[in-house]
């Protein structure tokens, strides 16, 4: 039995275009909520001995002059208070004031980032993502150097990557708008891990195309790509599954500070598997055949196939 994956390439590409479009719209409309690592500020995590109502805490913070404080309750009953950057003295004063109103408290965690550090972090994180993309492009071009048009492979792999990254960040923009999720360094780490992971899948498919082209299994490039896809399908799905298992375990059991990372990975693995199976290889065919119309016209493409 032989699946015809590449024949439906118009459909897959249109789906991806819609996904990317939604992701970009979400990014433009909501934007990403930067955590203190990128925007500076302080996060104080405290635990009260007595039961404290969140609205009262918010009110008390406003009284103390922290109108913009963001309060979240963690799963373990701790309060997570985000403010502008606090000095040591300001923090002590804040804790004393809260203690006076709500009773004894313990500080679980305190994290403070100055604006200088935040600006550096944003700058370097952007460079890291860009360098990763270029590094991978160069490596893939090199690995496929004996093929005709090695650059095509690199570019198609990078497009699949951008696809994954846009979708992941788009989902985080929505999560930020609805649930107040912020992106932090673990998010960037997750995005880079997704880049590595998604490219990994793409490379396996491309590797099989390389081999099948060399063996000359079929004169038609499209058929070569299709059989390569089918042959590597169970491997791609199985590896994604085993990785999904461990990521789910991380998400369910550790959560907390690596929640961002685990969720990025979860989405990234699913989208990355999709893009490495249905986006990167089909784009390769589209480029090879110069059928750019397939990227825009779904109905016409369909009649073509029929």
């Amino acid at each position, binding site marked *: 039995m032989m699946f015809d994956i590449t024949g439906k390439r118009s459909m897959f590409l249109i789906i991806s275009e819609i996904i990317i479009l939604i992701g970009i719209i979400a990014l433009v409309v909501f934007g990403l909520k930067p955590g203190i690592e990128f925007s500076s500020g302080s996060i104080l995590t405290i635990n009260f001995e007595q039961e404290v109502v969140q609205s009262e805490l918010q009110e008390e913070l406003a009284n103390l002059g922290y109108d913009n404080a963001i309060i979240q309750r963690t799963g373990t009953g701790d309060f997570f208070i985000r403010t502008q950057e606090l000095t040591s003295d300001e923090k002590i004063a804040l804790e004393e004031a809260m203690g006076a109103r709500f009773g004894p408290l313990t500080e679980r965690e305190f994290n403070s980032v100055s604006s200088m550090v935040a600006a550096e972090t944003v700058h370097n994180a952007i460079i890291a993502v860009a360098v990763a993309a270029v590094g991978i492009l160069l490596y893939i071009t090199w690995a496929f150097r004996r093929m005709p048009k090695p650059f095509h492979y690199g570019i198609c792999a990078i497009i699949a990557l951008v696809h994954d990254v846009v979708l992941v960040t788009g989902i985080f923009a929505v999560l930020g708008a609805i649930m107040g999720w912020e992106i932090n360094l*673990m998010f960037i780490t997750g995005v880079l891990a997704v880049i590595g992971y998604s490219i990994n899948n793409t490379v396996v498919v491309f590797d099989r195309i390389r081999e099948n082209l060399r063996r000359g299994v079929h004169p038609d490039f499209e058929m070569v790509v299709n059989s390569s896809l089918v*042959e590597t399908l169970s*491997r791609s799905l199985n590896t994604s599954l085993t*990785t999904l298992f461990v990521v789910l375990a991380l998400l369910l059991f550790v959560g907390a500070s690596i929640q961002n990372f685990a969720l990025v990975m979860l989405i990234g693995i699913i989208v990355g598997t999709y893009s490495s199976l249905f986006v990167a290889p089909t784009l390769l065919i589209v480029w090879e055949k110069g059928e750019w119309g397939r990227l825009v016209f779904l109905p016409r493409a369909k009649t073509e196939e029929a």
Partner: protein
Amino acid sequence: MVRRNTIVFFILLAIFAFAVCAIIYPMFGREELRLGLDLQGGIHMVYQADFSDLEPGTEADAIEGAMAVIERRINVLGVTEPLIQKQGSDRILVELPGVGEAEKAKNIIGETALLEFREQKVDEEGNLTWVPATATIDGKEKVLTSGYFKENTYVGQGNLSQILLYFEWNEEGGEISGEVTGRLIGQPLGIFLSGEPLLGDDGQPIAPIVNSKITDRGIIEGLSLKEATELSQLLNAGRIPVPLNPIYEQTISPILGADFIDMSLMAGLIGIILVMLFMIVYYRLPGALASLALIFYGAVVLAIFKLIPVTLTLAGIGGFVLSIGMAVDANVLIFERMKEEFATGRTLGAAIEAGFNRAWTAIRDSNVTTAIVCVILIWLGSSIVESAPVTGFAVTLLIGVLVSMFSAIVVTRTLLRLFVGTRLAKRTSLFSAHREKK
């Protein structure tokens, strides 16, 4: 061939046994896995030096002096394995693992602390205690501190090559000193930092005996070279060679860290069990062998973490757990290839060898791309202040990728070869492999 494989098998077994021992028992002076601040609690501070008031060319000395004074001050706290590091040319990183009293520690590190001179007094209960040495100047009581030094102190040698520490008071310091030392001739003068005595090489408080009244310049005798040098640095730095402003702070209570360790252990365990179950159900015997290789992988990676040592952060454990899922990837590639080769009519032994050989380029290329990302993340980690999570993740994932290639290829192949030629290998259902039906 068979004999060589058996030898390799026993070498692998020896590596595994060594790794397990390295994890359980102290080895090369390492007692346990080194945990990051987020897992054991502690303080992570980064200070930015403000050079604006400094003479050009003295910045490096000022930073070194500041680091020396911070180190000395931290020793008073009795922290095990503190880390004081210069970052770039103008920043100092201070990491204090396991410290619960963040505020006290920060005050001690902070720039305001001065060395204070104290004299011995007998209190009401008859105990000898140290109280600040004060003098009354213009009707005001003033404490003698290192803030009154005029120039930097320095260490020299006397005629009898004894070690001497030279110091000089400024005008006000000279007046206070004159009164204090005049009163205390023949008595010790203790040197205190943030209420704690400075300790010498012998663990006793450093307390030079006053020989004569000192109004401008003087010497301290009787110190070892090390003591004198350190004290001199401390006294000089006590004059605040450069203001330090905190630009990044993270303090985590030790209790919170303990929760994370349990949770991440749980996640790792469940993850590894799910992966093994899947591999065994889907690939049968090869899957079971891959699971053994996975155990080998886990033990070797943990042993490497402990022996290098790699500081394990929460993100680092995330990287490790992730690498478990990815570690079987090479095996999946190989087994799928084996099935294909077997289906085309090769013998099992030939299919295994072909599976390994043909899967190699895909394994290499996919792991190289992951390694590229890891290296970039390590660079990112080294270039930013809040580096711990990023570096922790990248280092563990990189180690994981490298070891997994070895375990998936060498370990699984060796185990599989042991089975080829045995009766078990005749039962192809164990390999979930089928001949192509034509």
